[in-house]
């Protein structure tokens, strides 16, 4: 029973890898040559758009988000685990930073203008926003 269950679960995870952003146990290695870059800004209460490369309220983007290929978003990078996975992480990172920077009293939300190149396709541009920060509306 254990063997059959594990085999079925493993096959299900492999199948799930074809549509899920995060592809746990799907073992799709080196899936794409896709690249991406993003201009990530803090949009403040008064409407200014401040690049996250500039430290704010004692925070630094590359310290807050040192992992998953995200510390220097303005530099064009390879999307190691695929574009969908990379941009899902970027979106989650924006939300995490928005929620975990309590000393910042001016940012309303974070926004990333992402340019992505899926393999050798023409570039696509999309806008990703964090949740609006609590207490800043």
């Amino acid at each position, binding site marked *: 029973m254990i063997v059959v269950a594990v*085999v079925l679960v493993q096959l299900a995870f492999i199948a799930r890898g074809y549509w899920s952003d995060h592809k*746990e146990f799907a*073992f799709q290695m*080196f899936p794409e040559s896709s690249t991406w870059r993003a201009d990530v800004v803090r949009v403040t209460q008064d409407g200014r758009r401040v690049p996250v490369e500039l430290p704010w309220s004692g925070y630094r983007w590359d310290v807050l988000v040192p992992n998953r290929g995200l510390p220097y978003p303005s530099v064009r990078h390879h999307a190691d685990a695929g574009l969908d996975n990379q941009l899902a992480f970027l979106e989650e990172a924006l939300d995490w930073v928005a929620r975990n920077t309590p000393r910042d009293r001016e940012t309303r939300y974070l926004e990333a203008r992402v340019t992505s190149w899926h393999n050798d396709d023409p570039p696509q541009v999309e806008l990703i926003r964090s949740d609006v920060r609590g207490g800043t509306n």
Partner: protein
Amino acid sequence: MNAAAVGAPPGAKSLVDRFDALLGRRVSMRGLALLRVLTGPVVLLHLRPYLSDSLDGHTYRDAFHHPYAAWYPELPDAAYVALLWLAAIAAVAMSVGFLTRLATATTFTIVAYNVFLSTTHFHNNRAYLLIVLGVLALAPTGRELSVDAWLRRAQKKPALTQSAPAWPLWLLRFECSAIYAASGLSKLVDPDWFGGTVTWQRVVRAREDLNALPDWTVSLLTDRAFHTGAAKFIVLTELFIAVALWSRRTRYAAVWVAVVFHVSIEASASVQVFSFLAIAVLVVWAVPSTRDRILRVDPTDESQRRLATLVRGLDWLARFRVETAKPGSRLEVVDRDGTALHKGAAVAFTLSRLPLTAWFALPALLLPPVRRARRRR
């Protein structure tokens, strides 16, 4: 435990019965025991960045992380760090085989807890490590190659049986094969991958890293047409390994190719512990029977004596029984099917069955004199 016990039993009635018998049959756990020894250092390598951060006073909570589920329990920092260090200690205990079952289960539990703390912790190599640790935790792998076994001998207690139901072994074989198959299949169905676009673009973008290579190599590697063929070769290599591991006729070739494949990946990409782990897991494809080949050596012959010493030291999968032959005898190896090999063929065959020397010695088995000798009974 001999090879005959590993074959299918007579009288199995249906496919389900045969499948059940296959999984339940008692086989040697030697391969899994060796994998347990090798996996301990892999766990330490995996934990190193977390432990290093903890020494600097940092944990995952200080930076971007994304829990899989809101209900997943998170520990206070001190307890979390203590748990990581406990995992490192447990990994060492698992590797040396001290309180093996407990150490392996502890290692698996903590490594799994840590990986599932955040989506940012997840990578393919860590998924594979979890699978390996899970199987090792389920199988009785501490009865040999372990401090536990040594303590039993020292206390003059009877040795525990070194065989156990085969299902953990088959499970890990399935997972090992599934990983190559999943990776190969995902590339096969992606026209950009199979057509060479992905590898070509990766190489072209990393052109600066190729400066140390000769011009003609750089020119070849950055040639789009080269990748049209190379990509297909890579995909078919992965699928070949996934399939060929299942047949005894092609298994050694699959293992040999897999080693080259992983060494190439390690040299060209950052894959954390994947290469070492994947090569280590290949030991589970050894036939799960032990001491069913005989190496007969003349103790008065210096070179034969040296080979016997080498085999005693490196026969980690317990393939051979070393016996003393009459003075003046030729070196002889008797395979499990009764085939006897002598002199050079015997040396090549013996070295091809030791984990550390197999990769170098396996091609020698293709030499005509060795092939002829192996065909003779």
